[in-house]
């Protein structure tokens, strides 16, 4: 596979995962904020904003409609749904002949759907229907990807992109909530529910822990649960499997470096307990995860996309 194609597939998956993250954050919090007092709403808006990979630079007070507007329609906001979907589609267009027609058709449909929505509708209705449709479309895209594309190298690059993005997003979101989860700040019951919902984990959590919400359990679930597809441990394991499926690079064994980083992260998390993490510092642990993801991203790039010429010539 061409390196450029691998790069485009990787970023296509990342942008779509990012769009989904923004969608879920909005979806989980919009209803919550209806029931909150003004100062609680302010706090929640700040949390949503910081949970994005690249928070908005805010001047003055933020309102709910303004944040909705920015996160759905503002092309200048990198994490906005429209901008993520557009970038995903641009990447798909670059590799149009590599992805299936069904995938293209779903992504193209999503793009046109998002563009069609009228921002003025936000003045008199909650965009819940809209967000749900975006989420459904992304899910359909992922379904078509699994069903219509060969699960070869191309497909694995999509998996890497998706789980890399998901890991970073979950870690960022947990970091924002770290003071409350560690008992250094107050948090309302509803806000905990919104956190779980943002991680797509509410019902799954109930099944495991019942409706008892404790900070430890929530951290354990979102960080270390081995079975839930949005937990960090689950995502990094997928990341490791996907990297292992890539071809060995001929000359310099660069894949070894990516393998090693993924393996180390998986091992650290697999053999951690929530008590240990809390006692040595949640923020530190999350920081570590994000830092290692960044390293993995660079190592991957160097091994497969932008490698030096001299060491990669065929023998």
């Amino acid at each position, binding site marked *: *596979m*061409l*390196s*450029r194609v*691998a790069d485009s597939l990787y970023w296509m998956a990342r942008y779509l995962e990012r769009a989904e993250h923004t969608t879920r954050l909005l979806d989980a919090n919009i209803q919550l904020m209806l029931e909150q007092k003004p100062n609680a709403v302010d706090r929640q808006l700040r949390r949503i904003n910081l949970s994005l990979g690249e928070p908005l630079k805010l001047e003055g007070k933020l309102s709910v409609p303004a944040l909705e507007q920015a996160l759905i329609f503002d092309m200048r906001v990198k994490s906005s749904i429209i901008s993520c979907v557009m970038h995903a589609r641009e990447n798909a*267009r*670059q590799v*149009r*002949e590599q992805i299936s*027609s069904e995938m*293209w*058709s779903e992504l193209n449909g999503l793009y046109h759907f998002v563009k069609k929505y009228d921002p003025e509708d936000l003045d008199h209705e909650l965009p819940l229907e809209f967000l749900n449709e975006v989420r459904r479309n992304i899910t359909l895209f992922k379904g078509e990807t699994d069903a219509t594309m060969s699960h070869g*190298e191309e497909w694995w690059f999509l998996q890497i992109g998706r789980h890399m993005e998901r890991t970073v997003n979950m870690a960022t979101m947990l970091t924002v909530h770290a003071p409350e989860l560690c008992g250094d700040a107050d948090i309302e019951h509803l806000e905990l529910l919104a956190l779980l919902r943002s991680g797509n984990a509410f019902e799954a959590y109930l099944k495991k822990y019942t409706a008892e919400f404790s900070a430890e359990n929530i951290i354990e679930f979102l960080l270390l649960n081995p079975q839930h597809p949005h937990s960090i441990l689950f995502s990094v394991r997928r990341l490791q499997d996907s990297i292992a499926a*890539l*071809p060995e*690079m*001929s*000359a310099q064994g660069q894949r070894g470096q990516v393998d090693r980083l993924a393996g180390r992260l998986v091992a650290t998390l697999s053999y951690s307990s929530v008590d240990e993490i809390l006692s040595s510092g949640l923020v530190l642990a999350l920081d570590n995860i994000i830092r290692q993801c960044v390293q993995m991203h660079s190592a991957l790039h160097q091994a*497969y*996309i932008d*490698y030096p*010429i*001299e060491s*990669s*010539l*065929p023998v």
Partner: protein
Amino acid sequence: MPTLNAPFDKYQLDGAFDEMFDSAGAVRPHYAPLFNMLEESSADDLRHAKQESDLIFLNQGITFTVYGKEEGTERIFPHDLLPRIVTRKEWAHVEAGLTQRITALNLFLRDIYHEGRILNDGVVPRELVYTCKYFRRQMRGLRVPKDVYIAVTGTDLIRDLDGQFMVLEDNLRVPSGVSYMLTGRQVMKRIFPKVFRQSGVLPIEDYPQILLQSLRALSPDGRDEPTIVLLTPGVFNSAYFEHTFLARQMGIELVEGRDLIVHDSVVYMRTTSGLQRVDVIYRRVDDDFIDPLAFRSDSILGVPGLFNAYRAGNVTLANAIGTGIADDKALYAYVPQIIKYYLDQDAILPNVETYILAEPSARQYVLDNLEKMVVKAVGESGGYGMLIGPHASKQEIEDFRAKIIADPRNYIGQPTLMLSRAPCFIEGGFDSRHVDLRPYILYGDKVSIVPGGLTRVALRKGSLVVNSSQGGGSKDTWVVDEY
């Protein structure tokens, strides 16, 4: 003037050769199955068929890009519902003529980049060749595999008033449109299976395979299992759909300039399994942009060092660099002499009468008769830079007069031609529109031409311009067995 019965009662039949009806208004025999079907079908049936056909094009993403629009840059290529039909006998004549023409033009290219015999013998003016902006002095003395310069050609043919095929122009650089020929055929088979079978249409589906074989035949010496790639300028090029289509059909990689690297005069592509050597590049990038070190230094589409690798014989470019000299519109006038010179044969397919405006007497004649002439810039394609006298305003004619006087080498004149007309399905009824025909000629071990080509149609009533950028569309072209 014969009149036709419904549903052809509004059909325009005067003033040009008609593909379906003869001058007495009778249906030509090879059009009979189509004609019978059209007579029997209701307007609703046909409208339905048209919708179905458009939908197939849309769903397959058969689009071209319109420049200068921020959004909605991808459009469906307009495709007329009715096929254009040519008999096997007519085709045999066309095929022989094109084979002769391409063989001679290829010998001409070989000659002018080596000994230049034809220039020394004074058959083609030296001046004309050396002043052409597509002449590449870097190609002098460079041997290309099998001496084949033009692996892919699209030659535009028209019919005169008597129905004789003539050559309007050659496209020897990077001709496009073949994907419309192939997909148009798929659509026709689905829409009109019965007429298709009755007519005995010759197949064209092996085009990608023959193209691949031709490219393989041209691989550098000693590279028996060549890696072949298609080089595209990228997603913003108007023919990007075609590039992805052909790459997929041939099963080869679609690469952009940034995917290729030249190291020690060898070309590699960057893959996730390391660098992989590239042997043959079917390039859809113009000469000017292919290597910023050798040609235009501001090109970001090209590959630095590619021309060196080419000179070293480590990679084949198809088409070769510098083929544009042979489709220069002023040189076109000399093609019959070129055929005579190399093959000692008369041209099977005639040229359109052409006035070289660098010659004073011809220039005077054209300037005196501008309102009756077509004037074309020699290096332009796509219907740009062109004056159609009978359709032009006084001001446009005067503007062109000034341009010709300022730079006569840049223009040629031709009489206004009445292109033949073919039946089209337009706004729920039938009418005739002007058409041309672009067959695609492949040259590897030998010259091969799939039977048919792209029929381009000027969808605006009365218009003679068939280019897609100027309101043109396409039709499937059927070469059928005789009746």
